[in-house]
């Protein structure tokens, strides 16, 4: 049966056109119930095996004698509930799926994941294409009503269709109108609450996952007393109008990491970010939301606050006044949020703050404190307090009412006990959105047989160079199982060396478009936490088949140069190859072999050749202006595997590290040149943008204050300046400068060569015009892409379809994001282990001040490689008497001045007074702040009950007085000069 569907659409120009699409209505769409043979036989008769293959593995069938058909609103509101595996035998109509898709993309993706899982028995029925259930919109019927009717008709059809098998069909909807109408049709309808309560006898946790957007909160009464009353959000249609007219600006809100009452909105239409201060102005926006913001009149513009707020001070604190210190920095466009264009609520990790009897039964209202300081507290309801308190849990926000200070949400998942290393690591992974689920069956299916490398067939060898005779070896950190690079060198006369870098041929096993490729693409990188590694590829590949271990045949991708002993590349060859490594060394072993003059075997002499050549290359690179930067990297020592950290050691860098690095850089640069030559429009490259000069301003001033010359005009001058920053009595000063320089620069990013002009390809840090990542395909996805590109360039592989500037750009965006997240997670893990390390200890350590804020300063502890904040005031009653100087970045109270680069002694301990938020506390011991505070507290200017604002105003006044005195003084001197004349 054929049917035409039409609708009217307006074009960009504003013309109304009629769009007609034809629809074929079928009678062979199976109902998806196992017992129904009519549908199945008809389906088999009409389709051939190929058709079925397309849909196999994605369609599950239902078996129970009660099936449920969901309405759209149920999916939109109860997605967390639907992800619970105890709900089964559910029909999702295509009408519903389309509605979900158009309303909320992320929920659509989540429900699709559920549908894919065959064990969940969710079946999609294409009711719009079925002859029995398809309907057309009637005159005067709204699209919404039409969809509701389509759902009812489909349910009715299901009911009569499955009637003879004694299968009961229920429509699950929370729409009262829909429920009523379906009852009149004779359909059994239920609300989701009714369903959950029926099932809750078997599975009580379901009730907590139930989200309740429409319920009247009984607890609201007490809230209405609180004076928080947010302004109404403007409705969408007015907002779009206003945005078009330029009255309000649209952008994504980013809450300040250090101050949850302040946020920035990035807009395309306005050059600077718009500052939003205070909870009232933030008006219920949550970090990441797309918001509409209205600018305040210019007189009310503020400067971003330089205060670090101590805690997420919740209800106890009642004034929202933001500490205003507009004297010290420039004002910024300031605005208030008038509407939310799109919520970007995610599930958040955290814990409940509960003081009371955890064993009591019944319904409780709890306050949930997210780990992410930018997210407000969330009020949740629970019947099982004892199960939640003391646990890390995941909570989703449901809504945020005008008259409630905090949003309300519901419990999603329990991660495990608080403070547990396992749990907290899991939290880190969730927090940074790192895919860490075990590899699925479809991915494992893509794996080759483990003995594939023992049976290398001639077809595998086509186009491959046999390098098994070469003396190839690898040098890696100890305990490394995923060896992705190996080297060889030999003298070929005329003062020439042949140097080969061999990289694991991962793209041979990870073919484009396979499940394993998709998985690797979404993971994009292996994530290294202190005590574990989240692999990008399954262990079988990363730890065995691809890993270039010694004494086994392995496929590799080789880059072979002919180099003079002056480091000049004469010739280069890129080829796929097969190698057999003779030794896998650690950096330490390799270093010993180089240093030990008595060892003269082939590997050792080759190592020495390589080392010499690397030094030449390194010198060349340094002469071009490459920077050597530093990071406060440390390594935890653990007693046993997976145990708590017992000691911390600084990551030791040897000559061999630099040697390997040098050749990897060489390979990356040469591969980048090659792929850019062959794919000028879509080569995946890596660039490090030249930092803006303004970014260095502060640092330059600080270092020059120390009496050094510091020039950032070019990377070469910067490198030289850094080399010059040496304090004789302080060896760490140079490293500190390098660390802080690193902070001033933006990180290197992946990009597609088609999206930027050639001049912008430059890698600033490495001082090379073009760069890419080629050498670690086991742990980085970009390298796999580069391998494919290179294989195409040398004619090993056919050109794939996806080689376009657009797809590569899209991919590189994801890679950059994942890369950043992996770094954050790694840092988070280090922090976590530092915390565990310091539990029950109190240490005195040297530290350096690296940043100064109005009420605190940030210190770096070199011994443990972490930074922390030292507050000058402890809580709200105490007030700091320190004078903050923004230009010089100093804090002083007359007797002592804290400035950047100062070396101080600090005391480090774990503050576990708040169970859900343990953290490292750092106190300054030498010079002792507490004593200073005591002194300052006794000064007559301090009166009890002065708010920080007033205090600062006083400071300002005193400052103004000083200025007046000074001017007076100068005038007097001027007069004196005049009189003498």
């Amino acid at each position, binding site marked *: 049966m054929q049917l035409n569907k039409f609708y009217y659409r307006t074009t960009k120009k504003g013309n109304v056109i009629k769009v007609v699409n034809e629809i074929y209505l079928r009678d062979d*769409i199976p109902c998806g119930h196992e017992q129904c043979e009519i549908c199945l036989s008809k389906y088999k008769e009409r389709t*051939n095996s190929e058709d079925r293959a397309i849909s196999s593995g994605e369609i599950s069938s239902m078996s129970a004698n009660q099936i449920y058909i969901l309405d759209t609103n149920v999916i939109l509101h109860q997605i967390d509930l639907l992800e619970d595996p105890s709900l089964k035998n559910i029909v999702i109509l295509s009408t519903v799926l389309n509605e979900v898709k158009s309303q909320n993309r992320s929920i659509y993706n989540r429900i699709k994941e559920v549908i894919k899982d065959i064990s969940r028995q969710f079946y999609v029925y294409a009711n719009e*294409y079925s002859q029995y259930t398809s309907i057309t919109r009637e005159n005067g019927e709204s699209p919404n009503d039409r969809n509701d009717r389509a759902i009812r008709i489909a349910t009715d059809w299901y009911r009569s269709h499955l009637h003879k098998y004694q299968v009961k069909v229920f429509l699950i909807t929370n729409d009262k109108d829909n429920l009523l109408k379906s009852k009149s049709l004779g359909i059994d309808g239920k609300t989701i609450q009714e369903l959950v309560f029926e099932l809750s006898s078997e599975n009580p946790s379901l009730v907590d996952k139930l989200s309740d957007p429409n319920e009247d909160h009984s607890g609201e009464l007490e809230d209405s007393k609180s004076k928080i009353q947010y302004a109404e959000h403007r409705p969408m249609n007015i907002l779009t109008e206003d945005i078009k007219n330029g009255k309000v600006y649209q952008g994504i809100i980013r809450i300040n990491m250090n101050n949850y009452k302040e946020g920035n909105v990035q807009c395309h239409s306005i050059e600077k970010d718009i500052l939003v201060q205070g909870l009232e102005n933030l008006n219920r926006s949550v970090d990441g939301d797309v918001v509409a913001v209205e600018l305040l009149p210019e007189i009310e513009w503020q400067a971003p606050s330089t205060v670090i707020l101590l805690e997420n001070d919740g209800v106890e604190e009642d004034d929202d006044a933001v500490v205003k210190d507009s004297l010290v920095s420039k004002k910024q466009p300031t605005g208030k949020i008038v509407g939310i264009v799109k919520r970007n609520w995610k599930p958040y990790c955290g814990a409940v703050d509960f003081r009371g009897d955890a064993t009591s039964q019944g319904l409780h209202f709890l306050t949930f404190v997210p780990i992410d300081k930018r997210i407000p507290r969330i009020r949740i309801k629970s019947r099982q307090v004892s199960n939640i308190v003391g646990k890390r849990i995941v909570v989703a926000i449901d809504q945020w009412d005008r008259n409630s200070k905090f949003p309300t949400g519901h419990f999603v998942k329990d991660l495990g006990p608080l403070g547990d290393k396992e749990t907290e690591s899991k939290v880190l992974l969730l927090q940074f959105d790192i895919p860490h689920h075990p590899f699925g069956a479809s991915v494992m299916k893509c794996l080759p047989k483990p003995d594939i490398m023992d049976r290398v067939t001639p077809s595998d060898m086509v186009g491959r160079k046999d390098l098994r005779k070469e003396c190839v070896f690898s040098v890696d950190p100890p305990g490394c199982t995923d060896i992705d690079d190996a080297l060889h060198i030999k003298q070929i006369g005329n003062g020439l060396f042949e140097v080969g870098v061999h990289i694991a041929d991962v793209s041979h096993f990870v073919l484009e478009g396979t499940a394993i490729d998709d998985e690797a693409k979404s993971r994009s990188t292996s994530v290294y936490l202190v005590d574990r590694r989240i692999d990008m590829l399954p262990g079988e590949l990363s730890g065995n088949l691809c890993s270039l271990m010694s004494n086994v045949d392995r496929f590799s991708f080789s880059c072979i140069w002919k180099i003079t002993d002056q480091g000049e590349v004469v010739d280069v060859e890129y080829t796929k190859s097969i190698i057999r490594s003779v030794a896998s060394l650690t950096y330490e072993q390799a270093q010993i072999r180089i240093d030990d003059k008595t060892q003269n075997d082939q590997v050792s002499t080759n190592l020495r050749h390589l080392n010499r050549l690397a030094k030449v290359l390194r010198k060349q690179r340094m002469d071009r202006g490459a920077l050597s930067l530093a990071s406060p990297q440390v390594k935890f020592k653990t007693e046993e595997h997976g145990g708590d950290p017992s000691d911390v050691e600084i990551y030791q860098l040897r000559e061999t590290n630099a040697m390997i690095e040098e050749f990897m850089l060489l390979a990356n640069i040469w591969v980048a040149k090659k792929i850019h030559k062959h794919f000028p429009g879509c080569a995946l490259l890596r660039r490090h943008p030249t930092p803006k000069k303004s970014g260095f301003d502060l640092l330059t001033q600080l270092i020059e204050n120390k009496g050094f010359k510091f020039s950032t005009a070019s990377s070469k001058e910067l490198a030289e300046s850094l080399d010059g920053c040496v304090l004789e009595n302080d060896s760490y000063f140079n490293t500190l400068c390098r660390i802080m320089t690193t902070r001033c620069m933006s990180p290197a990013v992946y990009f597609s060569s088609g999206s930027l002009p050639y001049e912008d390809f430059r890698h600033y840090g490495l001082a090379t015009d073009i760069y890419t990542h080629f050498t670690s395909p086991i742990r980085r996805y970009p390298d796999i892409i580069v391998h494919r590109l290179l294989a195409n360039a040398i004619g090993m592989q056919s050109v794939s379809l996806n080689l376009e500037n657009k797809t590569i750009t899209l991919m590189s965006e994801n890679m950059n994001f994942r890369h950043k997240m992996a770094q954050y997670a790694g840092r988070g893990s280090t922090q976590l282990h530092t915390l565990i390390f310091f539990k029950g200890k109190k240490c005195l350590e040297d530290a350096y001040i690296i940043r100064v804020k109005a009420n605190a300063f940030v210190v770096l502890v070199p011994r443990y490689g972490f930074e922390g904040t030292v507050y000058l005031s402890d809580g709200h009653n105490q007030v700091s008497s320190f004078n903050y100087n923004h230009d010089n970045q100093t804090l002083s109270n007359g007797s002592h001045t804290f400035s950047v680069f100062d070396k101080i002694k600090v005391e480090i301990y774990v503050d576990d007074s708040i169970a859900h938020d343990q953290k490292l506390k750092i106190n300054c011991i030498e010079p002792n702040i507490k004593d200073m505070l005591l002194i300052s507290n006794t000064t007559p200017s301090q009166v009890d009950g002065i708010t920080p604002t007033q205090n600062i105003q006083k400071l300002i006044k005193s400052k103004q007085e000083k200025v007046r005195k000074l001017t007076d003084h100068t005038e007097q001197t001027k007069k004196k000069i005049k009189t003498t004349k």
Partner: protein
Amino acid sequence: MSKLSYISPDGLRVDGRRSNEIRRLNIKMGVSNRADGSAYYEQGNTKILVTVYGPRESVNSKSLYDRAVVKCEFSMSSFSTTERKQRQKGTDRQATEIQNLIKQAFESTVHVQLYPRSQIDIFVQVLQSDGGLKSASINACTLALIDAGISMKDFVCACNTSCIDGIPVLDLNNIEERSGGPDLLLSINPQLGGVISLNMDSKVQQDLFESVLDLGVKGCQKIFTILSDQVKRYSTELMSNQQQLQQS
């Protein structure tokens, strides 16, 4: 912004077809009395009228002494697409392309040497366009030429195929054509078994090409059975009419 999904998880396309199904064909031959041969051809919502004049004496001196020349004029009605377009003077690129395609296809299939110094004119008029214009035009021309009684070696059947999300699909409609996937047009002589033309826009993965082509051949065969059915029915109808005339 939201990317359309062209094939649902249960294997149905945007208009409810499966990947290997063609749209419904609706054919009528001999619709115009004035022309020597004509056909009205519907493939889904694509509607085309073809009229054939000839073989007749060449108007200009471009005739060939040993065979006939096939000429084709392709035009889209201004109301054929959703957005009404102002006709431009002269022929646009798409029209020229289709004209050449048809000319080449039929110069190789019509027994041109039987009609020396003459020309055959084919006029293709698109009444409604919903994807697959090229293939539909070729099929319609075959029917019109048969109606005109011009001697041909074989039918020419054409079909377009594509590959969306790695699945080969047959006979694209307008929405699917705009998906940006490859568009492979195949026209064959279904009985003689030769390929008349094979055009492809955009790229297709090498290892998928074979299966896309296979599907195209299947589609052409399917179209052929429908066309030949229709031609047979039309001829018998004509014959019975003639017999009735003779009897009366």
